[in-house]
């Protein structure tokens, strides 16, 4: 759900202004209490104060009797997250720095999460390319999404986006390893590298690594029923913009685990780069 930069933007700014008197623009991240009349009554952005925020918010809510709330179908559509195209397979990703280098900010011990979409057309492409048992290049869209959007250091928070032209290497190949009735199991692997610079936010940021994994496809539905992969990389960044904590100094180990996500939550939460629309996310391609 996108609160800023989309159709909810002016409504949301108004809610923040009324809930957080001290807010002077900028980020609206934080915690808010809404009354049953549909308006925000309180907001804050400090985790230790959440219990008192809830208590105070509850008091304010009691003081403002509920009124009928007019929420139109258009309001609901405006608040909806980008939805995956029908038949899309969804993969859940988890990023960690392991081990966290000595002396690094404790924020580097946190967990990064995201989702990868693989379309039914891309799965059909895999089935077709692998039918003979030979190695073949993974679909370009899948490779680009992994290299640009997902094999990233999002441990301390949202990533300053990478660009396709920053990726110098992303060669991922797959191979059919087993066929069993209507199921096909593939293995895949590949190397990737990227590097960029955006002064004054950072002068040198990069990542080099290798991904290995396997996945099973149901031929009839062109859906991935099982996905297991891990990316093992070295990353570096001299970024100073992140107030939550700097990345470790020097090169540090960054790991990404990937598993299939067939639950209902995975259908409701779009990949972070798709929040403003799935088309941009799905159509990204590497230049080479």
């Amino acid at each position, binding site marked *: 759900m996108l609160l800023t930069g989309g159709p909810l933007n002016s409504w949301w700014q108004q809610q923040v202004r009324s809930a957080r008197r001290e807010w002077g623009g900028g980020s609206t991240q934080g*915690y808010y209490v809404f009354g049953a009349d549909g308006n*925000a009554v309180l907001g804050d952005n400090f985790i230790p104060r959440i219990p008192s925020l809830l208590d105070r918010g509850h008091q304010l809510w009691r003081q403002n009797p509920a009124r009928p709330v007019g929420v139109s179908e258009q309001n609901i559509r405006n608040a909806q997250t980008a939805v995956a195209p029908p038949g899309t397979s969804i993969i859940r990703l988890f990023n960690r720095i392991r081990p966290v280098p000595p002396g690094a900010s404790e924020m580097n011990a946190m967990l990064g999460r*995201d989702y990868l979409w693989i379309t039914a057309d891309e799965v059909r492409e895999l089935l077709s390319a692998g039918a003979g048992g030979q190695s073949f290049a993974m679909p370009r869209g899948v490779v680009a999404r992994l290299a640009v959007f997902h094999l990233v250091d999002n441990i301390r928070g949202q990533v300053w986006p990478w660009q396709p032209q920053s990726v110098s290497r992303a060669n991922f190949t797959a191979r059919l390893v087993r066929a069993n009735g209507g199921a096909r199991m593939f293995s895949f692997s590949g190397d990737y590298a990227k590097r960029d610079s955006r002064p004054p936010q950072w002068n040198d940021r990069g990542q080099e690594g290798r991904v290995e994994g396997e996945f099973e496809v149901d031929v009839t539905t062109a859906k991935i029923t099982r996905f297991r992969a891990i990316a093992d990389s070295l990353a570096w960044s001299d970024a100073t913009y992140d107030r939550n904590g700097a990345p470790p100094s020097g090169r540090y180990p960054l790991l990404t685990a990937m598993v299939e996500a067939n639950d209902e939550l995975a259908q409701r*939460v779009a990949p972070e780069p798709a929040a403003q629309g799935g088309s941009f996310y799905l159509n990204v391609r590497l230049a080479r």
Partner: protein
Amino acid sequence: MKRSTFLMSWLGAPALAQSSELEQRIRALLPSEAENGFMQVPWRTNIMEAIAEAGRANKPVFLWVMNGNPLGCA
């Protein structure tokens, strides 16, 4: 079906051997129970649907906002 049998005997064993190690490495990176504790809350993902539902139930709404979806992104 003939091709299936052929591929299984030709390539199946190495893939299965790799699979066990892969599973272990992945498991070591998955969220702990504590890291997934907040997922036990039945969060709504559409603020307008939540406001409408709260209005019907006469309840307040607690909203968590961050850069990146709290339920799945950074």
